[in-house]
């Protein structure tokens, strides 16, 4: 019995050794893995990616970007520019190159070497000469190649995830920038109304028709409005700069144009059917987790088979965090079966495998929940934005029309008219914010289905404070 079992154990090892020569032939691919990344990205964002590996590539993508910048940006154009131009993403592609180099390296034996040592102590001189040959390397070469090729696959997925994340971030930054610019426009209108009030109040006070108290009140409102305008102006700059960073633009490209208005709300909404299944198919974090689990499974198989090869893979993190180096690495341990026939190692490998399975399940459950939440946010944001467009703004307009009629009949004062026009402007502004929030929610939904999720941010929708005019008469 026991001999049989040992024979069965020895078999995969024999295969591993026999595949040595074949594995040794690993070489660089023509695309460096980018074709796969590009396909992944295109499937999820509609846009391909490319890698600037030469000066010609860089020049070509620079001229394409330049072409896009001749017109006010659309969300898609912004994504294309970011994918072509964002240096962070290009750095991620370099990571891909590193992974491939590792893979190729793993398929080659270390060169044999000589070492020479000379130690002198007192009158004695010891001279050490040795010939080095990487025997362990030779034994683990097929394992290493297998692991590195899986790591290369992961690197591709991770590069794609980063590209999709960039596309998501760019879209959000785009809508933020357009929205902030529109908000700035309306803050300017509020300030104009406040300025008119303050100026009128000043002139009224000058000819003796108004008290200093009333005048000061109008002046105070104008002063506040000016602060708001400054704030809105900075926010517009900040939002635009965020977009600029993601687009990877600098220098003369900085005066790119963004449209004056956000895109209209879509006529048709994405259906809720099937979004969870779609997310399971599409989500890159789910795929990365799944791949990690299968890698662990093959390591487990090996450990089970031999009992004295222990492969520990580390660092199949769900996603890469910006600013933090990815935790990556692996360890192959070849034990000599002298005292220990490897039961503990097998148990450990099994536990690690179970752990990776649970992690995959966790990722999947989280992804399903995220996509449902993102969908709710998307629907609600849409309904709110529609409500603003169809109800709130027309109502405010009607109120303003009626206040104007009252002003005409000397039933309301010019200040009531101005207060109301400020309220109308704020409601238009709130409508724009709602429209922007819808587009961001739409982007988040796409990210929840296709990317790595909505980024974990809360989608809680808070109430909006709209300045309410209370005309009295």
């Amino acid at each position: 019995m026991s001999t049989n079992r040992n024979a069965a154990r020895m078999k995969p090892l024999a295969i591993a050794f026999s595949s040595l020569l074949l594995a040794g032939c690993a070489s660089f691919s023509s695309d460096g893995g980018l074709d796969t990344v590009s396909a992944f990205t295109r499937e999820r964002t509609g846009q391909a990616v490319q890698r600037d590996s030469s000066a010609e590539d860089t020049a070509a993508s620079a001229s394409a970007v330049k072409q896009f910048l001749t017109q006010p940006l659309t969300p898609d154009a912004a994504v294309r520019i970011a994918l072509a131009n964002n240096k962070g993403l290009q750095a991620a592609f370099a990571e891909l190159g590193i992974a491939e180099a590792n893979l190729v390296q793993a398929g080659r034996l270390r060169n044999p070497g000589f070492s020479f040592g000379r130690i002198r102590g007192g009158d004695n001189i010891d001279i050490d000469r040795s010939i080095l040959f990487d025997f362990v390397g030779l034994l683990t070469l097929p394992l290493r190649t297998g692991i590195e090729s899986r790591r290369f696959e992961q690197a591709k997925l991770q590069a794609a995830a980063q590209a999709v994340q960039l596309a998501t971030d760019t879209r959000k930054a785009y809508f933020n920038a357009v929205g902030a610019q529109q908000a700035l426009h309306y803050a300017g209108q509020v300030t104009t109304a406040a300025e008119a009030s303050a100026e009128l109040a000043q002139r009224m006070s000058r000819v003796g028709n108004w008290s200093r108290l009333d005048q000061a009140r109008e002046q105070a409102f104008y002063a506040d409005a000016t602060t708001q305008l400054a704030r809105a102006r900075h926010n517009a700059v900040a939002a635009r700069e965020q977009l600029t960073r993601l687009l990877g633009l600098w220098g003369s490209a900085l005066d790119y144009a963004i449209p004056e208005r956000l895109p209209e709300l879509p006529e048709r909404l994405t259906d809720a059917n099937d979004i969870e299944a779609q997310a399971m198919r599409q989500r890159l974090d789910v795929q990365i987790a799944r791949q990690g689990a299968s890698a662990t499974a093959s390591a487990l198989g090996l450990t089970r088979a031999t009992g004295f090869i222990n492969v520990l893979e580390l660092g199949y993190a769900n996603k890469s965090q910006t600013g933090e180096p990815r935790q990556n690495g692996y360890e192959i341990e070849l034990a000599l079966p002298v005292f220990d026939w490897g039961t503990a190692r097998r148990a450990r490998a099994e536990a690690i495998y179970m752990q990776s399975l649970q992690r995959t399940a966790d990722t999947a459950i989280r992804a399903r929940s995220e996509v449902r939440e993102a969908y709710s946010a998307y629907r609600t944001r849409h309904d709110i934005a529609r409500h603003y467009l169809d109800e709130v703004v027309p109502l405010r307009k009607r109120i303003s029309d009626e206040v104007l009629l009252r002003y005409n009949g000397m039933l309301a004062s010019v200040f009531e008219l101005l207060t109301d026009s400020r309220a109308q402007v704020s409601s238009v502004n709130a409508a724009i914010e709602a429209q922007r929030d819808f587009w961001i929610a739409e982007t988040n939904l796409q990210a929840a289905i296709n990317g790595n999720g909505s980024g974990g941010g809360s989608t809680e929708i808070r109430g909006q404070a709209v300045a309410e005019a209370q005309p009295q008469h």
Partner: protein
Amino acid sequence: MVSRRNFLASAATMVGAGVVTRVGAASLPEAVIMETAATQAPLAPPNGRPYHPVVTLNGWSLPWRMNNSVKEFHLVAEPVVREFAPGMKANLWGYNGQSPGPTIEVVEGDQVRIFVTNKLPEEHSIHWHGQRLPNGMDGVTGLTQPGIPPGKTFVYEFTAKRPGTFMYHPHADEMVQMAMGLMGFWVTHPKNPDFMRVDRDFVFLLGNYDIQPGSYTPKVSTMLDFNLWTINTRVFPGVDSMNVRQGDRVRIRMGNLTMTNHPFHLHGHEFAVTGTDGGWIRPEARFPEVTMDIGVGQMRALEFIADEPGDWPFHCHKSHHTMNAMGHNIPTMIGVDQKGIAEKINRLVPDYMAMGERGGAMGSMEMPLPDNTLPMATGEGPFGNIEMGGMFTTVKVRKEQKPGDYSDPGWYKHPKGSVAYEWTGNVPAATRAPGASLSAAGVEYRARKPQGHQH
């Protein structure tokens, strides 16, 4: 006047048989209704004791039925729509199709029976303001009678003892029902038709309403800040003129059912106050006046000889009462240069127009207003805008106005040289007090800074 026979049929079924038996009547008298706000010709008495009828401004007098020497009237309290002036209508409560209700005219000593049908959604009762009558006929819900429930008819019966000027109004949920326009005039003529005989006898009630611009129903909870001050629930230019023949002795009888007093002022003549709701004033107690203040809940009769031909205003001297709906919270814009600001506002409110810089006159401006809202001060006269509204009307005195003719003779044709005219000669500089000078800002005074503590 319209007979509403179909209403009568339904009213008859509504009235309990017991009520009919108790009043000894086979049926209710006809409830005549009026559907126009135009002043109706005086109602010459077809039967009963003779009298000289009054003219109700923008109103009418209620016909009666003689039933075994009892004068029977039928008032129906009901929701009505009253035009305040062309371009503005209000949902009110009134009597027999109108607010105010028809004037009731009887003669001293008449036996009067009034059927009151309540077609309001709440209890009702009528108080006969100023009358001497049995306490149980005084019409005070809860105190002298139960309220008349919706759909029911009650009967009031008394003898019109004292001649004079009276009114009727609800005494059930009085605040709401009067704010909704329920009120009417009552004249008890003297037995002797020649007692204090006049050629023209006009009557009306003063009312106040708060109908917010763009709405149709009065705010019944308003206490003082009304925006429509009415003569017989009409506002100028919806109030008819009082047309008289030159030399006529004219009597105007007014009742005040508003929340404040009204100093009424007649142009071109002086008058004497000859009666109150307490009765006629002895000639030796009268004094000449051109303005008479009429307090809340009071009646006044004034008389004058209309000997000056022309179109003479007769109006409340509280100038806000000769305006229609207006904002009371509007800052004064007089002298405020709005240049530059208007353009700024126009960017936000394209249809905005600067107003008030040269005063409040809006005669030449025609701007859209909220629905069902009258311009603040209008009324076209022969020389342009009269810039009046609310409690304003005219007495038109004409030589050629025939006795008994109450029709509007049109605008007065002034004899040549009798209208104020423009001076076209040299204008000498105005004499100023020595040392006075205009300050740069055009303000004609100089503030003296307080000095010391003697002041």
